[in-house]
C-alpha cells in the first residue's frame, strides 16, 4: 500500500496480509491513501512466525528501503520501531510543514506550544490542560505551516506512568474527557518548561531571538532545511510570546494558562 502523510509519500509492504491491519493503526495522524506507486521511502515488514522446529520462532524484520531497521521475535516491538521511524521520517521530510518536538493544546482559538525533550513533562502538562478544558492537538509534534499556524497531530497520548522503566501507555484523548482539535490555529503562547520536583513556576519572557532559538533546538528538520525553519519560526515568534521557567506540579502552569487566555 502507499499513502501520503503531510506531503510525504510512503509505501509499506508486508509478507502477510494479516499484518496490514496492525500497520494501519501505526500510521501518522492525518495520513491518506495514495494512488501513485512512486514513494520516497518503502518499508518492508517480514513477519517471522513459527520456525522449522516446534518452539522455534523466526525473527520479525523491518526494512526501510534496503536498510534493516529492526529485528525482534516480538512483532509488536518491530511495529513500534516502524511507527517511531515512520513518524520521524515524515517529520524530517515533510516539504511544507515544520515539525517541532512539542506538546500542543488549543485554548480559545489559540494554540499553546510546549516544546521539550522527552521526560521534561510535556505529556503530563498537555493532559492536565486537556482536563482543564483545552482542546488536544498533540503530545509529540507541533506541526507548523509557513504562516506559523499549528495543525492537529492528535495521536493518542503516550503517558509513562513509571518513568523510563516502562513503555508509555496510549490513551485516546476521549479517556481524559477531552476532544481533539481539527482546524489549524495561530500560536498564542510558547511555554519552555521542565519539571523539577518542588520548583516554583516563575515565567520570564525570552527575547524573540532566544525564543526562536529555543524552538529551533527541538525542530526535527532544523539541519535539513534550516532556511525554511527560520522563516516559519520568525512568523510564529512575531505573534506569540515565549515564556521560560522550571515548574513543579502542573497546576501552577494550568492556572497561569487559564488566567492568560481566560476561563472557557
Amino acid at each position: 500500500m502507499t499513502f501520503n502523510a503531510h506531503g510525504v509519500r510512503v509505501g509499506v509492504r508486508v509478507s502477510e496480509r494479516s499484518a496490514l491491519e496492525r500497520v494501519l493503526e501505526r500510521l501518522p495522524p492525518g495520513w491518506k491513501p495514495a494512488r501513485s506507486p512512486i514513494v520516497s521511502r518503502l518499508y518492508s515488514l517480514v513477519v517471522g512466525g513459527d520456525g522449522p522446529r516446534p518452539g522455534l520462532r523466526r525473527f520479525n524484520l523491518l526494512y526501510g528501503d534496503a536498510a534493516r531497521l529492526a529485528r525482534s521475535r516480538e512483532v509488536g516491538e518491530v511495529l513500534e520501531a516502524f511507527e517511531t521511524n515512520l513518524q520521524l521520517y515524515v517529520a524530517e521530510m515533510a516539504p511544507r510543514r515544520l515539525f517541532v518536538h512539542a506538546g500542543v493544546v488549543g485554548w480559545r482559538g489559540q494554540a499553546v506550544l510546549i516544546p521539550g525533550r522527552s521526560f521534561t513533562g510535556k505529556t503530563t502538562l498537555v493532559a492536565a490542560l486537556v482536563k482543564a478544558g483545552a482542546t488536544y492537538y498533540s503530545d509529540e509534534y507541533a506541526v507548523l505551516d509557513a504562516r506559523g499556524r499549528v495543525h492537529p497531530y492528535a495521536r493518542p497520548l503516550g503517558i509513562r506512568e513509571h518513568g523510563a522503566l516502562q513503555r508509555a501507555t496510549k490513551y485516546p484523548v476521549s479517556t481524559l474527557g477531552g476532544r481533539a482539535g481539527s482546524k489549524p490555529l495561530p500560536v498564542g503562547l510558547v511555554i519552555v518548561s521542565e519539571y523539577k520536583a518542588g520548583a516554583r513556576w516563575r515565567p520570564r519572557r525570552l527575547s524573540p531571538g532566544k525564543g526562536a532559538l529555543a524552538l529551533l533546538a527541538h525542530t526535527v528538520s532544523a539541519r535539513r532545511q534550516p532556511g525554511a525553519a527560520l522563516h516559519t519560526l520568525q512568523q510564529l515568534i512575531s505573534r506569540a510570546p515565549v515564556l521560560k521557567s522550571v515548574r513543579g506540579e502542573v497546576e501552577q502552569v494550568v492556572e497561569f494558562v487559564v488566567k492568560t487566555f481566560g476561563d472557557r
Partner: protein
Amino acid sequence: MPDTSEHFLPQARRDGILFQAIDDEVIVYDTERHKAHCLNQTAARVWEHCDGQTTVADVARRLAREFEAPVDQTAVWLAVEQLQKARLLADAPRRPTGLSRRELLKRLGVAAAVALPLVTTIRTPAAAQGASCAAQGELCGPSAGGLPCCPDLPCGQIGGAGDCVCVPPLTKFFPC
C-alpha cells in the same frame, strides 16, 4: 587598543551561513557546524558592519551614529571576540586585542550606553533527537532506526548478541 589590532579589518563569514532577522536580533545558522547563534542587537549590528574594509574604530563610530549614543571601541571588540568564537568571522587572528574577555568587560565597565553584545549558541538536533525516547527493554539505536534511549538508560546488547535494547540499570551489556 594595542597597535597590532589597529588595522584589524574584521570580515563576517558568508559561506555556509543563513540568517534571519527577528525584531532587533538576528539568528545566524551555520550549515557546516549545525549551530544556530542568536546575536542581540549590538552583536548583530557589529556583524553586519564586518565587511573586511572597516576597522573596529570605524565600526564603533558607525554604531554611535545608528544608536545615537556613544559606543566604546571595547564594546565592538567584545562583539568581535564572541563572533570569532562562534566562527562567524572569516580568517580572523585568534585574539586580535590580546586582551581576555574579562579584561574587555572590565575596560568597558558598567557605563556602556548601548547593550553589551551577546551571542547565544545552540547545536541543532539531529532528526533522531526529535522523537520521544525508547523505554527500558525497548529496541533502540541501530535496531530501531537510530532511536535513542530515555535518560540514564544505555543502548546495548545483553550477552553481546541480538538486538540493541535500552538496558536496565546494573545489567551487563555490550555497547551497540
